[in-house]
């Protein structure tokens, strides 16, 4: 077999056990490898050591307010679509300590926090997830202001992305134009076929991680299987959102549509949709003070536009009811986000549908607003 020389853009095939060597290379390069695995009967992202930790032969069955893991009746590793967690928790953690203060002689002294971050290698990042990271990049890394915490974390990650050949029941990335195929933004891209993984080199770091592997040339059967798989995936989305280009104007022109109040009768304002959303970025800050008042720890925590305190101020609450809060969430995500950051805030991952205890379905609500909509 002729030796294959790898370079940026190369695509090769590996036998599945060889992926362990890639993970080994990443660990040696100082990365902590984080990937999909099962915990408490749900898919989570946690440290993985190798193929044995991946959710082989499993899929999830999802619908509004429901999530179950089931056998897939095949031996593939990456068929299962995401659970509640997203990669957001590593780049923009639910809680991150900003600084610590000590009071001495009436003056506040800052104690710097040395955040010794691991370098994460994200293993198995689906296209919707990759799109979500790109959306948060636009939120946190901007020309006017940049969030140093996010930027520091973001610059240090390695991404092994994944073509999504088996979308789930609440997925609609094809409607949002964010999947199911990975186009760019990866160090290595993986496509899982029955016999092999196809790997594509996307960066020098990816090239490094693929050194000395036993690789095979991609033969035309595999290419055909990959193309067919991606095409089938695009046609097997559990949800569809029609005419996405019209949605920003539709929502902002219908702020007084009767549907908002109707949704509010079902919405519990529980914040689940914003916590599981891979792009939601709102945060609050908390001071935790020692009983003597001498020490204060300032911490950034995720917030949600569904929390009453989010919109409370001296003169009263700007959004005093669930209808106004749901309207804020949906119009932001699907309309005003585009003016703010040049993209919509929805990537079509379907988490807000699955994890809504009331089973409220964003695709259904938008279609309902189309009925009796003002131009």
């Amino acid at each position, binding site marked *: 077999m002729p030796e294959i020389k790898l370079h940026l853009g190369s695509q090769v095939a590996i036998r599945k056990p060889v992926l362990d060597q890639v993970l080994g290379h990443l660990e040696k390069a100082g990365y902590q490898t984080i990937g999909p695995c099962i915990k408490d009967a749900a898919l989570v992202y946690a440290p993985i050591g190798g193929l044995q930790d991946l959710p082989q032969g499993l899929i999830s069955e999802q619908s509004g307010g429901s999530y179950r893991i089931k056998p897939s009746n095949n031996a593939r590793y990456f068929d299962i679509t995401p659970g509640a967690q997203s990669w957001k928790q590593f780049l923009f953690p639910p809680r991150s300590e900003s600084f610590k203060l000590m009071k001495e002689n*009436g003056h506040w002294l800052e104690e710097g926090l040395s955040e010794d971050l691991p370098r994460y290698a994200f293993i198995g990042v689906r296209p919707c997830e990759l799109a979500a990271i790109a959306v948060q990049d636009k939120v946190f890394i901007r020309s006017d202001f940049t969030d140093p915490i996010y930027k520091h974390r973001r610059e240090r990650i390695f991404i092994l992305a994944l073509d999504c050949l088996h979308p789930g029941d609440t997925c609609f990335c094809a409607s949002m134009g964010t999947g199911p195929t990975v186009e760019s933004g990866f160090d290595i891209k993986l496509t899982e076929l029955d016999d092999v993984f196809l790997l594509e080199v996307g960066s020098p770091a990816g090239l490094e991680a693929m050194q000395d592997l036993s690789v095979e040339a991609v033969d035309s059967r595999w290419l055909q299987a990959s193309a067919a798989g991606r095409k089938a995936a695009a046609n097997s989305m559990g949800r569809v959102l029609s005419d996405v280009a019209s949605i920003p104007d539709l929502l902002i022109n219908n*702020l007084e549509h009767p549907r908002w109040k109707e949704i509010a009768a079902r919405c519990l304002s529980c914040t689940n949709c914003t916590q599981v959303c891979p792009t939601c970025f709102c*945060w609050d800050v908390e001071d935790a003070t020692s009983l003597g008042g001498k020490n*204060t720890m300032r911490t950034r925590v995720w*917030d949600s536009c569904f929390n009453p305190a989010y919109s409370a101020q001296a003169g009263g609450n*700007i959004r005093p009811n669930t209808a106004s809060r749901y309207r804020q969430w949906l119009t*932001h995500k699907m309309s*005003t986000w585009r003016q703010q950051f040049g993209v919509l805030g929805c990537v079509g991952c379907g988490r807000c549908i699955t994890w809504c205890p009331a089973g409220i379905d964003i695709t259904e609500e938008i279609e309902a607003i189309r009925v009796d909509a003002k131009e």
Partner: protein
Amino acid sequence: MSDILLAPAKATREDVLIAPLWAEIVEITPEAEGVSTFWLAFKDKALAASYRFAPGQFNMVYLPGYGEAAISISSHPAKPERIGHTIRFVGNVTNAISRLRPGDTLGLRGPFGMPWPIADIKGRDVIIAAGGIGLAPLRPAIYHIIENRADYGKVTIIYGARAPGDLLYPREYDAWRKKGLEVLVTVDRGDENWAGQVGVVPILFYNLRVRPENSVILTCGPEIMMRFVVFESLARRVSQEHIFVSLERNMKCGQGFCGHCQIGPYFICKEGPVFHFGQLAPFFNVENF
């Protein structure tokens, strides 16, 4: 698009998302019942010398253990070494600040926000319409106008508060009048000593002769008051792009990251707090938006 440009002020610092800069309270001026001006000076001398702000901008004022509040700067923009913050004691943070004394320390991040378009309204008549604490973010604009009086046409301040004791900066009105500004004051309810006008701020428009094509409105106060100021201005044919409104919202960051201060596509901390009414018109009358 307005022919008057809202232009961001040049930032003096950009690394202030997280950690505050420490300032000392050098003086506290009681202004009204439950309102005082806290005069702050940065402890770092180099910082004190380099700090600049533009009229209409605000700082995030931090009291460790309690939190931060967005407070407009109310002092002279040409005297930035002592930064005045007129604070109404109304929430958790501001009530705790009310118990501080000169010599105590506060954290500051800023300045943030879109300033009043004072550089781009030269030659025009200016009507400043303020209610209650809303005069605070307008006072730097008033000082700027007075210092550059020849650059502006007729300048009128219409100001009101609930009661005579709630009026801010009453000792300054005569000084402003002496500099050629017209100052009209009203209160919602007078007391035994009040000989002036009684009624809400928008009724003071009936004392004015507004030249619509040449006038600019700068307004800050309760939203209900600004709603009527906008209404009276539009009724006098002032274009909505010449009516500048300063909004207040709950804020945590000041740089468009924390999400709290959004109104439609805008982050009030970054694209505001000063807007021309044309930007807000689609949302201003939508309930609870």
